[in-house]
Structures are given as structure tokens and as C-alpha cells.
């Protein structure tokens, strides 16, 4: 595994739990790329029910599985979708119908009840629907996956950037990585190498002499120095800028914008994006305007390039697996895209393919397995 974000960590957990010898190399701290800086939303699927019902179905199923597997990294807040103008109200019927079809539990409540539950909500609430959104700690989730993988024999090397992916006679042979902790070069031989480098997947693929169509798309989030809501609050309309406020610990996080960037490195936080988040957020929770900003940050979603249908907020199925056997690098695979909420499912699909390649017959067990607590993770062997 190259990369220890949600994708790499979930796949490593799946493979290790099937008894497959697995090593993970990560260039820095686990979850130091896109995953760590995500919106902390455990999707109910509500955001996808109209435009992408398939993703919505996956979200609600995985949402329920993750609550069971890793309750310690999930805050069961619940979520609300609220309509605050005529346009939102016109979306209400399609939204409720979408929830019904996708199996996303949705209960419409009177606007005054919504305002009793969330006193910070604007007076202009016209309709409100409760859904099982929740809040997740993505860093701790990744550590839980990695800790469980370690307990099942996987080796994890943080602070170990990959330097070369060696391909010989049309097959991937080994990976060379610079282990900065032990100040040594690692040479990891493996019949299967999986590139899960997220927005950096193109760079890793180039090391093996192949191409991956990944288009990093950045998004700004604004964390306020106050928790203004107890539940996730979504605008009842097709996904767009500044339409969701996620409460996490002592903050409320407003998200997000979307624009294309070169890589996941050094993403700027444009001040006008921050202003737009606050303006849009204040339409839902007026106190947003007065609350001081704790931090504004940006991450890059790794989108599959050429997928014109999507700007990343509503990515169909969310991910794609590229088998580079076709490109002359048998055994080398890239996984691009994905969402933290559905990472377990993505990992199951990828691990099934790996098993097929290895001729291993082991069923996926991650639907039932509980994860170890995050603090069982160790940065180095014997640590």
C-alpha cells in the first residue's frame, strides 16, 4: 500500500484481516493529506439522494456499519436538511422521495420543532427533515484501521516517502522507500502494489512509468471558535458552496468550495472563499457572522480526471480502480477518488481484486469486525 489516508488504511485493514501480508508506506503522518482535512461528516446519504442515488445507498449502508465497527470515533449527532427559501422548498419533494428510494431514514419535522432542537437556526426555516448524519474523527478512524491492520500482522511505515516503483518484464517487482524514522532505504518486494496516494496518485504512478487520470480539486472549510449547532445542518438543495455546517468537538465547520489545483501540496486558502463560507453559513445559522474563525483550511479531493459529470461534491460512485497490467505494469493498481464514509466498501472491492490476482480465496470480514481503539496504533515496530 502506498498512502495511509482513508483509502490506504481501509484497504490495509481489509487485506490484513484476510491474512494477506501487507505493508503500508506513507510519506508523512497517517491521514496528513485529504482525509485528515475532510469535513468530518459521516454521510447519511442525504446529500446524494437526488443526483446520485447509488452513492446515497452506499453511504447509508456504510454509515450504519461504521457506527458498529468504530463507535469511539463517531459522534452520533444526527443531521437536519433545512429549506430556507422558495427554491429550497421546491427541492423538498424530490429530496424526500430520493431518501425514500435510497433507504435513507428521513423524518420531516415542523420548522418550529427544528428551531427548538437547534436554537441557532435562522427564523426563515420553511421545512426541515431529520436524517442520520453523524460526525466522524477522520484521523482517529485512520489510526483505528491501521492499528487493527498492525494487530493482524501488517507493517506500517509512516514518514517513509516512496522513491521508486520498479517494474521488470511487465510486472511490478518492488518499491523503494526512504524510511526517515530509521534513516534507511526500504526495498519492499510485493506481487501487488496499490497506489492510494490520493491527489498525489499521478506522481506515484509516474514512478512506475504509468499514468493515472487524477484531477485534484480543492475545497475550503472554515472552523469557527464556537459550536453553534448540535446536529449537522445541510441546506435542502443540490450540493453547492457553503451549504453544510458540521459540528465537531467545540467547533462548527462550514464547507465547502471547489476549484482545480495542481497537487495536494501547498493549497492556498483564498480569503474570498472564507468570506463566502461565512456569508452562506450565516444564512443557515445567523450567529456564524459574529463567531471568530478558529481556522480556515483546504484539502484536495482526488477526482478522476475527465469525469465531466462531477465537481467532486457529487462524484458518482466516488472512486475508480485502475489496473496497470494493461499499461505494462502487472500487479500495480491505482485507486482514485472515494469518500471516507464509503472507504470500507471501496476497500472490500479492491481487496477482492487483489485476492483474485494472488489466487487467494478469503472472504471479506470487515462488515463484522470491530476496530481497535485509535491509541493502539504504533509509529514504529516495538514502539
Amino acid at each position: 500500500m502506498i498512502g495511509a489516508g482513508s483509502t490506504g488504511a481501509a484497504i490495509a485493514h481489509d487485506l490484513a484481516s484476510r491474512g494477506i501480508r501487507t505493508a503500508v508506506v506513507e510519506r508523512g503522518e497517517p491521514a496528513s493529506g485529504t482525509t485528515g482535512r475532510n469535513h468530518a461528516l459521516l454521510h447519511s446519504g442525504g446529500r446524494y439522494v437526488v443526483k446520485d442515488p447509488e452513492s446515497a445507498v452506499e453511504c447509508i449502508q456504510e454509515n450504519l456499519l461504521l457506527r458498529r465497527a468504530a463507535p469511539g470515533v463517531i459522534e452520533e449527532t444526527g443531521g437536519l436538511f433545512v429549506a430556507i427559501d422558495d427554491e429550497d422548498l421546491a427541492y423538498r419533494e424530490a429530496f424526500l422521495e430520493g431518501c425514500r428510494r435510497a433507504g435513507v431514514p428521513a423524518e420531516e419535522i415542523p420548522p418550529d420543532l427544528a428551531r427548538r432542537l437547534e436554537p441557532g437556526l435562522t427564523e426563515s426555516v420553511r421545512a426541515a427533515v431529520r436524517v442520520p448524519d453523524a460526525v466522524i474523527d477522520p484521523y482517529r478512524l485512520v489510526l483505528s484501521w491501521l492499528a487493527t491492520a498492525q494487530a493482524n500482522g501488517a507493517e506500517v511505515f509512516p514518514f517513509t516517502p516512496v522513491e521508486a516503483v520498479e517494474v521488470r518484464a511487465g510486472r511490478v517487482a518492488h518499491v523503494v522507500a526512504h524510511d526517515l524514522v530509521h534513516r534507511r532505504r526500504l526495498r519492499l518486494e510485493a506481487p501487488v502494489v496499490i497506489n492510494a496516494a490520493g491527489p498525489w496518485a499521478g506522481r506515484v504512478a509516474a514512478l512506475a512509468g504509468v499514468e493515472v487520470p487524477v484531477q485534484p480539486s480543492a475545497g475550503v472549510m472554515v472552523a469557527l471558535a464556537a459550536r453553534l449547532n448540535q446536529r449537522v445542518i445541510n441546506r435542502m438543495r443540490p450540493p453547492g458552496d457553503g451549504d453544510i455546517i458540521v459540528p465537531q468537538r467545540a467547533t462548527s465547520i462550514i464547507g465547502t468550495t471547489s476549484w482545480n489545483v495542481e497537487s495536494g501540496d501547498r493549497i492556498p486558502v483564498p480569503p474570498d472563499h472564507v468570506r463566502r463560507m461565512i456569508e452562506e453559513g450565516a444564512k443557515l445559522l445567523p450567529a456564524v457572522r459574529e463567531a471568530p474563525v478558529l481556522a480556515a483550511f483546504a484539502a484536495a479531493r482526488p477526482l478522476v480526471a475527465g469525469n465531466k459529470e462531477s465537481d467532486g461534491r457529487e462524484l458518482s460512485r466516488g472512486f475508480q480502480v485502475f489496473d496497470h497490467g494493461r499499461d505494462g505494469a502487472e500487479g500495480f493498481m491505482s485507486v482514485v477518488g472515494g469518500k471516507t464514509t464509503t472507504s470500507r466498501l471501496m476497500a472490500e472491492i479492491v481487496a477482492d481484486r487483489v485476492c483474485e490476482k494472488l489466487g487467494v480465496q478469503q472472504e471479506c470480514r470487515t462488515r463484522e469486525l470491530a476496530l481497535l481503539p485509535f491509541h493502539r496504533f504504533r509509529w514504529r515496530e516495538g514502539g
Partner: protein
Amino acid sequence: MAEVELTVRVLRGPARASAAGGRYETYTLRADAGWSLLDVLEALQAGPAPDLMYRHSCHHASCGTCALRVDGRERLACLTTVGQIAAGRLGERTGHGKDYRLPRGARAAVTLEPLRSFPVLGDLAADFAEFFGKLDAVEADLVAARGEEATHFEHCITCGACMSACPIVASDLEYLGPAPLALALRGLQDPTKTGSDARRLAAADQPHGVWRCHHVFECTAACPAGVDPGQALMELRARLVRRRLGWREGARR
């Protein structure tokens, strides 16, 4: 926002048993006043220090990975901005987006060191393995309560700032320390009754447990999440004393 000519002194060095023994490297760069220290460190990584090791994840004070010693005090790198450093306003919780009205051509200097009392993986990256072992000892895996009432994640982000600031941890590495003991108390208060209270109490009530604290409250001063571990320690002591006296918890007298 204004640009600042920032001189950064970084305590660097390979994996070692404690922060001591590294060497200071000095870098100068032009930094936007709105940058956090994580932006500064990323700029160093992209330029003169490509192998620079530091920990980061959420960039908004929730993951607890980026605590460092900034000019000798524990701070989260994500919440510390260049503007705060240049204006001498370190420690202000809401530096982001604030205009400190810095003069043109402002200059500033800052020294970055890894947390004290932690082994180091390299450069600024503290190894949290032993710290996490202490969290394990008090079963610090609290489960958010279910039901109608919304419940919160722990405010404690296990960033290690209190462990670094505590003079007792510095002199007794086996001392459980402020964050694990504060989480032990949270575990005892947890309405879902997850985990073993007997184990938590046994861990707290031992020579390297709660009695080791000398109440200097450096932990509470250093905490970037407003947890007040010092107060939690005192409450834990009170509970243990009541138990020794055979008083029932919560009983009126």
C-alpha cells in the same frame, strides 16, 4: 495580508529518546501573515528542508497531531499564525483571519522544538506510542452516548501539550500524566458506562498515578482545548479519597 520576513529556528535531528540532542537549523523565508505554522513548515519542506519531519492532519485543532514548542511554550501549529508571531500575540486562540496591522517589511523570528518528555521520530515529530499506552491504561476510548440528546466528542484531543508542559512528567516518565488522568475521570463520568471503571481507578491510584501531581497547573495553562486537566486530577483524587473512606459516590451527606 502583509508579508513577513520570518526566521525559523528548527530543532532537527534523527530519532532519539528525547528532544535533547538535536541541532538547530535556521531558515529564512517570506511568509504571509495569514499563514499558520503548518503553512510555514510545508513551505520549508517544499524548499530548503525536503525531509523535514512534523506531524499534522486536520489543520483545525481537532486531531491533536501538531503540538510543538513554539518559543518554549506548547502550541498547536495549526492555530499559530505568522501574524501572531510577528505581532508578539502568541497564544491568542483566534489568530486566523485577524489583521495585526503589521508594518511593511515586518520581520520576525521563531524557534520550533518537538514536545518535551516524548521520544522523537525525527525533527519535530514526537513519538506518541508511550503516551497512547497510557491512554490505553485508563481505557480512554469513550463512546458517544446514544439517544435524543446530542453528545460530544471529548474536548481532549490528546495532543500531548499538557504532557510536555508538566514538570512531573519530565522527571518521572512513568507518571500517567494530565491527559490520561483527565480522560480516566471522563471515563468514570461516561453515562454509557463503557470500559472498566475498576481498571481506571487502579491505574489512577498507584505511585505513578494521580498522587504524583504537584499542582503547578502547567497542564491547564498549556491545554489548547480548554480541558483543564489540573482540575480533573483534583476531582479524581477526591473520588479516590471518598472511596477509601467508604463513602458512596453521589450520596448526600
